[in-house]
């Protein structure tokens, strides 16, 4: 399943279409601690987070994440959109809670 398809499953609004839109989502991380995100070794990771900060995007770039979805329908600062554009990182927001988003993505990834 691609990042683009996952965004659909999460009813997410894609604010920035990065290089990873058509990349396959293999792993999902549901974390708000950037230090934990940096420990991940996988290169096909989707990041679900409650944290709406530029560093989320910067961390995502460092670990080669496929994209970032900010949950809880949190409004994002415009700086995040700028950073996502600079880094060509897909950025989306979803009204779902992180818990509901985890369950929804899992269902979608495994119903194929």
């Amino acid at each position: 399943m691609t990042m683009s398809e996952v965004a659909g499953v999460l009813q997410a609004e894609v604010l920035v279409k990065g290089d990873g839109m058509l990349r396959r989502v293999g792993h999902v991380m549901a974390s708000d601690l950037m230090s934990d995100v940096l420990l991940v070794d996988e290169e096909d990771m989707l990041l679900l987070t409650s944290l709406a900060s530029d560093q989320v995007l910067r961390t995502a770039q460092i670990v080669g994440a496929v994209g970032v979805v900010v949950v809880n329908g949190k409004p994002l600062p415009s700086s995040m959109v700028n950073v996502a554009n600079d880094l060509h990182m897909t950025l989306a927001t979803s009204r779902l809670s992180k818990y509901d988003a985890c369950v929804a993505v899992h269902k979608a990834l495994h119903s194929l």
Partner: protein
Amino acid sequence: MSAPGSQSSVVPDERPALGETGNDPLVLLELIQRLKVRDVMTSDLVTLPRAASMQQAQELMRQKKISGVPVEENGRFFGLVSIDDIIRALVAGTIHESCGRHMTTKLVVLEDDMPLSFALRYFDRYHYGRFPVLNRDRRLVGIICQRDINRALLVELTRELHRLESDSVQQGGDGGAGSLYLLREFPICKYDFENAGKAANQIKQVLQEKKFPPKVIRRIAVAAYELEINLCVHSDGGVLSWQVSNGRAEVIARDAGPGIEDVEWACRDGTSTANEWIRSLGFGAGMGLVNVRRVSDEFEITSKKSSGTTVKSVIYIEGMPS
């Protein structure tokens, strides 16, 4: 080169000036010999004639935010009114008298085609804040102060770094780890969250452009990011630098404070001195140094309380691009 008359009583300094210790980088040495005083001085001068009052000089200094006003008429140089002169005049009640009467005439001046290394030596020896600059015809053409030198050196050094970077990257033609050389430095400011991580992102972009092996890119990027965030969150500010040469990538974080009390503790999993605010921004879980060590082939950390910390991560590169 001195103006006519003797020097005022200042004891020449015995310490070696910049460029004279034998430990200065070659690039810097070459620069301070290549650059001339006229390349660095301020030539947009504010001056007064001898008949102007000391009060006018004081007013001018305040308005233009300068610390000295040269006294000249039609390019003929007579002396300098400094802040010290103003203070003396205020105390003595002579602030309304002429500059010609109260200016400093026992001056050291520089010539505009002297190399910058001369000027540096003079700054070091004579402790003046500024030097007037004369041309071959003994006409006043500028004034040079420490700030001018710092600014010029910074600009030139940055230019030099960019040149080195692009030059050496093109050298990589014969393949093999030894021929590739990259170097960048990034200043990192304390609590500058707007830019935190930017340097690491840029480093990763360069690594991707140069087609380094993906796993190596990941490790270097993680080390750089963790070290950059550390500098931002835990130090009083510092420099993140990275270089690649001879099959090794080195990422180095240097700061001037506050120093780590217990290095062993700091390198342990889950220990952190971060406060709640920092945590709310997603940092400060205490994994930074542990993670840097995890991705490094060599890891070194030295720290002295109140004198700063240096952390170095080395990552070996195999399968370098040719």
